[in-house]
Structures are given as structure tokens and as C-alpha cells.
């Protein structure tokens, strides 16, 4: 009884999660090691510049595109986790203690706390970077 509940509630989901993570990582590594077109060395382990809406060095970030990118990621990740949680609850073990409610509200609360903090930190970092660039430009203009 104890062993079967352990296997059903803990070991199977843990192994399934581990296999999913490893499969995702393996897929990433496979892409990483695939020879690029025109690459003389064949292996592209060194990743190129970061991709994304706010990655253009030296240019002002596109805040709208960044917000859309982050919102899409957060909503997609949230829905994916809720799908897994519901599948776990109805397919593996009907865990008590308001499991589903806790999953929906707890993760939403985490997003509600983390995203505004992340947005504020990004905005402050970008503002500091822009001020640094402006100061450097003014110095160059005064001392060519």
C-alpha cells in the first residue's frame, strides 16, 4: 500500500517530469550541435547573440514587443502547467487539500508578484543604460 502510493504519486510523476525535461534539453542540444549552413567547423556550440525583442544592442528597446513576448510566455507557461496539474489530478492521484485551487491561485499569485518586479527591474536597468550612453555621447561631443 505504502509502496504503491509512493510509486503512483511520487516516483511516476517525478520520472515523467525528469524525462520531459531531459527530452527538451536533448532536443535543444541536438539543435545546438547540428551543423549550421556555411559553418566550416560543423558544430555550433557557441550560441549567437541573444534573440528577442529587447536584444538589439545600442538601440532603444521596443517595449510593446517585449510586453507581448513576456505576456505570451507567461500565459503559455501558465496554461501548460495547469494542463499538467489537471492531468495529474484526474489521471494519477486525486490529491486533497485544495490541490487544483491552490495550483490555479498560487501560481497566478506568483506571476502577479514576479512579473511587475521583473518589469520594474528591466525598466530601471534600461534607463540606467540609456543614461550611461547619453553621458558618453555628451563627453564625446565636448572632447572630440
Amino acid at each position: 500500500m505504502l509502496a504503491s502510493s509512493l510509486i503512483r504519486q511520487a516516483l511516476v510523476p517525478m520520472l515523467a517530469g525528469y524525462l520531459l525535461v531531459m527530452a527538451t534539453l536533448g532536443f535543444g542540444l541536438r539543435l545546438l550541435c547540428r551543423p549550421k549552413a556555411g559553418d566550416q567547423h560543423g558544430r555550433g556550440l557557441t550560441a549567437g547573440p541573444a534573440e528577442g525583442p529587447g536584444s538589439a544592442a545600442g538601440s532603444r528597446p521596443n517595449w510593446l514587443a517585449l510586453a507581448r513576448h513576456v505576456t505570451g510566455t507567461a500565459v503559455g507557461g501558465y496554461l501548460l502547467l495547469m494542463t499538467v496539474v489537471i492531468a495529474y489530478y484526474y489521471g494519477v492521484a486525486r490529491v486533497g487539500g485544495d490541490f487544483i485551487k491552490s495550483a490555479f491561485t498560487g501560481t497566478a499569485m506568483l506571476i502577479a508578484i514576479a512579473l511587475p518586479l521583473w518589469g520594474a527591474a528591466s525598466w530601471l536597468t534600461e534607463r540606467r543604460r540609456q543614461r550611461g550612453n547619453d553621458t558618453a555621447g555628451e563627453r564625446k561631443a565636448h572632447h572630440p
Partner: protein
Amino acid sequence: MNCGEVKVARHPLVGYLVWALLFGALFAWEGLSLARAGSLPTLSDAFRVIMRYPVGRWALFALWLWAGWHFFVRGWHFLLRA
């Protein structure tokens, strides 16, 4: 508790051992790839590739949410015990 619901199985020692093993394997891979720079991709290389794709970003965000939910919401009795 609703009819048919079960309590979460509490087997901390086995759980901690399995998690320690999994994280040990992960850190071993990272250490090996950092020590043999260039021959093995590091985890950040792999994550960078995965994050190019929306589904990969969703999976990583879901993983982050799940960890946060478990540590700070589900397990708050343990973490925030006075």
C-alpha cells in the same frame, strides 16, 4: 476533503534522495561542460536554444512556476515556519 481524494504521500527521505541524485547529475553535466569548454554544450547554451521557440519558453516558464508553487505556496508551512 472530497470523496476519493487522497493525502499527499510523505516519504521525505526517498524524495530528497531522488532529487539529490537528479540535481547531482545536472550539476555534474554542467561542471563537465564548463571544464571541457567547447566540446560539450553548457546548460545555458541548451536553454538559449530552447528559448528560441515559444513551446520551449512555455515549458521552462511552467517549470519555474511549478518550482515556485511547490516551494513557496504548497510548502509554505515548511519554509515560513516560525
